[in-house]
C-alpha cells in the first residue's frame, strides 16, 4: 500500500498517461460494436466528450511539470558533530533563511547571500551524535566527565578546533568515540535536537514558494568507507516526530544499508508516511557503494537486496563538493570529459588508499552498466537510479556558485589561505583545499513547489544533476519522435505526448524501430552558454558484457564531427587573472531529435544526457582575483560545468 501511495498518488504525469490511454480506449470503443445493456450513444455525442480536435485553449489538459525547481538535498549545520567541530555555528533555521535568499552572517563572520534563492532545501545532519557539538561546546557535564570528551573540549578551547574536528571524524570512522558521551536515540538531548530540526523545517516550509524538507543523514562509515545516505521525509512533523532518526552505532543502529531499508519500512508502516534515501560519494567508498559482492557478507548480492535497493534508493547524488562521481577516466578512457573534479586518492578519511579495481563499484556510469548485468541475473536492477547533485556543505550555506563558493566546512569559507591549506592529510595522501569542488544542485521537474510534488518527482526520477549552473534540460524517449518535433513551439508538450521523460522506461520495441529521443537544453539565464549535448548509452551484449558509448547530439556553431565521431572543442574565452568569460561562443539553447543508430532490440540499455557549458572560471580563479594571491601551478583555474540527467532505460 505504502509503495503505491509513495509516488503515484500525486503524480500528474501518470495522470496524463492514464488519461491518454483512456482516450485511446474510447476512440476504439466508438468503432467497435458494444455489448452493453445501455443503447449505444451516437458517435457525434461521444465526440463532444472526447473531441478529436485539441481543445481551444492550448493550455487546457496540460498538467505536466512546466518548471524545474532547484534545491539542495544535502546540507549540514552545527547540529552535525563534524560541522560543529569545524567551526559551523549556523543551525537549521539559519540554513533555511539563507536558502530563501536572505543575507546572513556566516560562521566566519562574513556576510553571505545567494545570487538567487533556491526553491527547496533539505537540512540533512548526521544522525549519529545529533546535536553532539552544541553539547560539547556548552561543556556538557557528561562529556566533561569523559577523558575523550574533555580532551576535545580543551583542544577547541585552546584554538585547536580543526585538529579536534579531524580527531572526532576519524574516531567516529573507527568507531572509537566513547559511548558515554555520544547522544543516542532515546535520550533527552537527542530527542531535543531532532525536534529542533523538525520545527525548523516545518516553520520554513511555505507551500508554493519554498519547500523545506525534514531529513537527516545516515552516516555509515565503517573503516572510513563512505556508505552514507540522506533520508528525506515527504511528511511534516506530525509524522516525523513519532520516530527518531536511524543511526549506525550498535546496538540501536547499524552500518548496513539493509538495516536502514528496514527502518524506512518500519517508519512507513508505523506512521503511514513516506521516506526516500539518496546515497552519495561512491568515490570515497573504496569499492563498496555499488557492490556486486556485498562487503558485509562477502557474498554476491541477492534478489532481495536488488529489489529493496531499487525501491528505496531511486536517485543518487552524483556530484558534490567532495568530487564528481559520474565517470572516471580509468573506466571510460575514451571519454575526454570524464576527468572532471576527481577525488580518487582513497576513502573518506584517507585511511586506505584507492586501488584501480575499486573504481568500478564507485562511479555512477559503471553502476548503471553493472545494474543491467545484475538485472539479467537477478531479474531486478538494483542500480536503476536517477541523478541529482547537492552540496554536502557543512557550513549551513548551500552556496556552490563558482563566484560565491562558501566551501565544504566553516574553516574553508572564503579566505586567502583556504585553497592552499590541506583539506585533509594522512600518511596515505593529502587533499588540498583547492581540490574542493564548487558543486552541485538538484533540478526537479515537479508540478508545483510542495513537499509532496517534489518528493514524488524524485521518486519517479524526473530529476537531474548540475555542478551548479541552473540550465534547463529536457529529455524524452519514445518510438516516434521526428526531426520536426525539435522545432515545435513547446517541445515539452510533444515530449510528454509521444514519449516518457527522464527517469522513465521503454520496453517492447515495435518491430524494426529504434528508440528516438527529444533532448533540449537552455542555458542558465545568468550563466554561460552551452557547448554541447551528449547522449551516453550503456548496454549489455548477448555474451553478458557491458559497454558504453558517447554520442555527440547537438552542439553550438558549425563544428563538424571527425571520423571517430568526436567533436572539436568549443573554444575558450576565460580570462583567468580577471576571472571573467564571455558568451561570444556556445549557444543559449540546443534542441535535437536523435535516434539510436546502433540499436539492438534484444539488448538491455540505458541512455542519459550530459550537457556541457563553455569553459568558465573555477572558484579558485575568483579567489585568486579577490584576494590578490597567486595559486600554485597545479591548481585548475577553469572548467566546463555540466548537467547529468536521470537515464531512460530500455528493457527487452
Amino acid at each position: 500500500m505504502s509503495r503505491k501511495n509513495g509516488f503515484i498518488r500525486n503524480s500528474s504525469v501518470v495522470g496524463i498517461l492514464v488519461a491518454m490511454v483512456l482516450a485511446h480506449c474510447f476512440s476504439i470503443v466508438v468503432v467497435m460494436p458494444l455489448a452493453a445493456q445501455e443503447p449505444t450513444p451516437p458517435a457525434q455525442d461521444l465526440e463532444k466528450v472526447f473531441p478529436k480536435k485539441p481543445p481551444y485553449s492550448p493550455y487546457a489538459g496540460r498538467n505536466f511539470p512546466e518548471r524545474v525547481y532547484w534545491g539542495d538535498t544535502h546540507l549540514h549545520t552545527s547540529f552535525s558533530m563534524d560541522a560543529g567541530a569545524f567551526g559551523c555555528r549556523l543551525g537549521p533555521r539559519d540554513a533555511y533563511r539563507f536558502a530563501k535568499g536572505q543575507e546572513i552572517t556566516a560562521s566566519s563572520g562574513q556576510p553571505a547571500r545567494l545570487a538567487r534563492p533556491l526553491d527547496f532545501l533539505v537540512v540533512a545532519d548526521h544522525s549519529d551524535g545529533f546535536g553532539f557539538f552544541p553539547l560539547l561546546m556548552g561543556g556538557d557535564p557528561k562529556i566533561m566527565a569523559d577523558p575523550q570528551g574533555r580532551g576535545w573540549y580543551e583542544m577547541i578551547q585552546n584554538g585547536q578546533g580543526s585538529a579536534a574536528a579531524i580527531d572526532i571524524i576519524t574516531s567516529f570512522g573507527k568507531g572509537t568515540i566513547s559511548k558515554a558521551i555520544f547522544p543516542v536515540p532515546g535520550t533527552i538531548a537527542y530527542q531535543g535536537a531532532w525536534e529542533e530540526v523538525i520545527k525548523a523545517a516545518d516553520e520554513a516550509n511555505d507551500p508554493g514558494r519554498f519547500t523545506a524538507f525534514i531529513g537527516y543523514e545516515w552516516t555509515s562509515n565503517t573503516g572510513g568507507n563512505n556508505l552514507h545516505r540522506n533520508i528525506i521525509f515527504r511528511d511534516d512533523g506530525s509524522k516525523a516526530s513519532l520516530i527518531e532518526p536511524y543511526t549506525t552505532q550498535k546496538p540501536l543502529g547499524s552500518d548496513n544499508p539493509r538495516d536502514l531499508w528496514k527502518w524506512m519500512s518500519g517508519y512507513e508502516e508505523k506512521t503511514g508516511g513516506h521516506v526516500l534515501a539518496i546515497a552519495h560519494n561512491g568515490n570515497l567508498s573504496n569499492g563498496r557503494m555499488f557492490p556486486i559482492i556485498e562487503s558485509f557478507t562477502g557474498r554476491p548480492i541477492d534478489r532481495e537486496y536488488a529489489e529493496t535497493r531499487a525501491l528505496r534508493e531511486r536517485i543518487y547524488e552524483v556530484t558534490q563538493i567532495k568530487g564528481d562521481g559520474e565517470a572516471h577516466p580509468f573506466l571510460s578512457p575514451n571519454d575526454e570529459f570524464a576527468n572532471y573534479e576527481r577525488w580518487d586518492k582513497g576513502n573518506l578519511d584517507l585511511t586506505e588508499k584507492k586501488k584501480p579495481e575499486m573504481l568500478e563499484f564507485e562511479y555512477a556510469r559503471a553502476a548503471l552498466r553493472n545494474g543491467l548485468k545484475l538485472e539479467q541475473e537477478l531479474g531486478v536492477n538494483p542500480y536503476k537510479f536517477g541523478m541529482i547533485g547537492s552540496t554536502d556543505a557543512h557550513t549551513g550555506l548551500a552556496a556552490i556558485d563558482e563566484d560565491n563558493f562558501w566551501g565544504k566546512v566553516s574553516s574553508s569559507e572564503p579566505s586567502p589561505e583556504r585553497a592552499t591549506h590541506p583539506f585533509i592529510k594522512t600518511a596515505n595522501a593529502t587533499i588540498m583545499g583547492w581540490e574542493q569542488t564548487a558543486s552541485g544542485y538538484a533540478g526537479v521537474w515537479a508540478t508545483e513547489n510542495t513537499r509532496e510534488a517534489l518528493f514524488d518527482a524524485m521518486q519517479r526520477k524526473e530529476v537531474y544533476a548540475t555542478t551548479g549552473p541552473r540550465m534547463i534540460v529536457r529529455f524524452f524517449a519514445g518510438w516516434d519522435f521526428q526531426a520536426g518535433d525539435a522545432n515545435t513551439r513547446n517541445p515539452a508538450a510533444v515530449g510528454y505526448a509521444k514519449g516518457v521523460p527522464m527517469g522513465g522506461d521503454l520496453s517492447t520495441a515495435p518491430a524494426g524501430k529504434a528508440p528516438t529521443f527529444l533532448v533540449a537544453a537552455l542555458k542558465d539565464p545568468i550563466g554561460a552558454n552551452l557547448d554541447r549535448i551528449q547522449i551516453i548509452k550503456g548496454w549489455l551484449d548477448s555474451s553478458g558484457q557491458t559497454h558504453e558509448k558517447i554520442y555527440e547530439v547537438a552542439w553550438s556553431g558549425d563544428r563538424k564531427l571527425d571520423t571517430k565521431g568526436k567533436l572539436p572543442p568549443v573554444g575558450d574565452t576565460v580570462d583567468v587573472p580577471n576571472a571573467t568569460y564571455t558568451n561570444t561562443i556556445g549557444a543559449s539553447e540546443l534542441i535535437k531529435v536523435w535516434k539510436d543508430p546502433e540499436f539492438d532490440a534484444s539488448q538491455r540499455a540505458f541512455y542519459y544526457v550530459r550537457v556541457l557549458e563553455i569553459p568558465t572560471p573555477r572558484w579558485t580563479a575568483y579567489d585568486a582575483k579577490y584576494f590578490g594571491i597567486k595559486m600554485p601551478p597545479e591548481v585548475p583555474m577553469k572548467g566546463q560545468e555540466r548537467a547529468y540527467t536521470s537515464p531512460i532505460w530500455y528493457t527487452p
Partner: protein
Amino acid sequence: MFEKLLREPIVHFIALGVVLFLLAGQARHAGSPESDKIVVTSSQIESLAIGFTRTWMRPPTQEELKGLTDDSIREEILYREAMSMGLDRDDTIVKRRMRQKLEFLTEDTVAQGAPPTEQELQAYLDRHQNQYREEGRLTFEHIFFNREKRGKSAATDAEAVLDRLKGRNGSHIELDTLGDAFLLPFNLVAQSGGQIGQLFGDPFSKRLAQVTPGQWTGPIESSYGLHLVRVDEQIPGNVLPLATVHDAVLREVMNERRRRALDVAYAKLQQRYNIVIEPPTPPAIAEKR
C-alpha cells in the same frame, strides 16, 4: 649562591604568591563558621538522581547516588576554594558566562512582562512596512524569437508578428504557431518579479513590470532572445495584514523589547562606573596590511 637566588624576580613572585595564599586562607577562616558548612539537602540529592536517570534511562543505585553526592560536595568545596583564591578573575569563559547569566535575567523580565497588545503589533508593522510587503505579481503570455536561429531578422520578425496581432481585429490567431520553440512556459500565472527574474533574467523582469496590461507589446529582451509579451493581470504588491504575519511581527517586537531592555539595563549600570580608556601603546595596533 643563596643570595643570588634571593635576588631572582621569580623567587620573589613565588614567595609573594605563598603569602597571599596564606593570607586569603586566614581571612576566610576568620570569617563566620557558616561559610565552612556544606549542607546537601534532600531536594539536591533528588535532583542529582533525576539528572542521572535522564542520562542513563534508569535510576542510580545506592552506590552511584553516593558517588554523585560525594562528587557534588567535592565540586562545591573546590568551587569555594577557587573563588576565594580569585581564580574566577580574568577568566574569559567565566566572564562570558556571568555576563550571559545577567543578560538572561534581564531577558527573563521581558519574557515575563505583559505580552504586546494587538495595537503595539500593528504599530510595529506600520513602522516596518517594507519588511512585510508582498511583491507584486504578474500573469503574462509571451512569444519567443530565437536570435541564434533568426540572426538579425529576429527583431523585425517579432515586430511583424506584433503588427499581425495588433491588426487582427478580433479574429483568432493560433498563438502556438507564432515564434520559436522555447523550454520555459509560455504563460506564467501570478509570478513575482523575483521569480520572473530567475527564469528570464532580471532586466526582462524589470521591463515587464512597466508594460501596459491587456495588449501585445515588445519585443523585450531576455537572457535568451526576444519576446513579445502580453500582461494579462497585474496583482499589486501590498503590505500584508497583521493576521498573516502575526507570529513574525510578534517575534520581532519581543526581540526589540529584549534588545531595548538589555541596553537600558546596561546604560544604568554603566553610569555607576568611571571608565578610562588609555591610548593603546604603538605595538598593540596592528600594522596596516
